[in-house]
């Protein structure tokens, strides 16, 4: 996959917002790939967690927007506890999700969940899913 990195493509506002919302210092990451290694969902992602951090650091908002990685994340915190630099990647994933959700763009709608599923699912699934995917 080729990505063009240039000051012209750097979206400073995006980087600033991700830093603020996550409360994390993106510069901590040294791209060791531990996060991708422990992520249980990485095989379903188009861009691995490691790549997402790099793209976020470089302000490449479009590449991240076109990726479904943050929406496949299950907030399991495996990346967070395994990062050798103490970077909380789960907070960064949440920040990126929120930048979309707070524009009132939802990832799912409650009516997309089938009526049978709505009856069977434990309430924690409904509550957590709607929190992560709707604004």
């Amino acid at each position, binding site marked *: 996959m080729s990505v063009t990195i240039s000051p012209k493509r750097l979206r400073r506002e995006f980087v600033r917002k991700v830093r603020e919302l996550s*409360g994390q210092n993106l510069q901590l990451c040294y791209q060791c790939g531990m996060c991708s290694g422990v992520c*249980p969902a990485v095989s379903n992602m188009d861009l691995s967690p490691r790549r997402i951090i790099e793209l976020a650091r470089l302000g490449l908002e479009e590449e991240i927007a076109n990726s479904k990685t943050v929406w496949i994340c299950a907030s*399991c915190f495996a990346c967070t*506890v395994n990062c050798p630099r103490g970077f909380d990647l*789960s907070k960064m994933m949440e920040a990126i999700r929120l930048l979309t959700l707070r524009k009132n763009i939802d*990832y799912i709608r409650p009516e997309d969940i089938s009526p049978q599923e709505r009856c069977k699912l434990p*309430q924690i*699934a409904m509550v*957590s899913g709607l929190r992560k995917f709707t604004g």
Partner: protein
Amino acid sequence: MSLAYYPGCTLKTKARNLEEPGIASLEVLGLKLVEIPRWNCCGAVYSLADDDLIHQVAPVRNLIRAKEQGQDKLATLCAFCFNTLKRANLLMRENAEKRNTLNSFMDEEIDYGGEVEVVHLLEVLRDEIGWEALAQKVKLPLRELKVAPYYGCTLLRPREVAIDSVENPTILREFLKALGASPVDFPESTRCCGSYQVISNPDDISEYARVILNSALKHGAEALVLTCPLCDYNLGQGQKELMKKHSEFKGMPLFYFTQLLALALGLDPQVCHFELNYGSPESLLREKNLLSQSESFQPIGG
């Protein structure tokens, strides 16, 4: 002795088979779980955004309820709720600015500063009762039933809420040994089941289940023990789909830790509500002579 108890929404309906055996078992062990009054849904997930306070209101309100009852501990059975409540509690303890804002926002409630401690039932069993004392109360040892302990995410991550070692937890292993079962360690015991992805990308769930269940089976497990209703749903439903798609896939019964506890303490199996379990626990329990022939349950989970 009594302990303030936060059930969470799921335990009253879908996960009766987690709550009822838990409450009954603790009574036998001398601990009465007393539900806090007027509790609300804790929100299930802890909000990870730095500026978000509205999603902290729900868990903090429940902590306030415990404080109002004069309690210094709040016990939970649901792993999901445990994580959220504990993290919100840490926030109120450590961040003065957010604490003040939340307290002033919830002006109809008393102020809260983290006075209550959030504990999970497994911690209570380990720290207040002790494994030896528990083992002595066991009336029906689980006859070396080979059970794989499955922790999932929320009891061990992030580090600040972990009830045990993050990398090598042993609490469920010790719990199972105290009950006379044979714990089967396997590498995927802390791997995520997919959590809330079940509502957005449900097709991925059976794959998450496959990795976990296959690993447990390969290491010789006859059953899995769980602490979370969402893990139960994802692994249970995932297992069903895998058995449908691949005829050679062997599923296994999924138990809640409270059910095994109640069984081992010699309580009436009715309180365990095995009919709500996935993986047909009945036949395995009969095979091991842990259930008399007269007991029968209509499987709902299948």
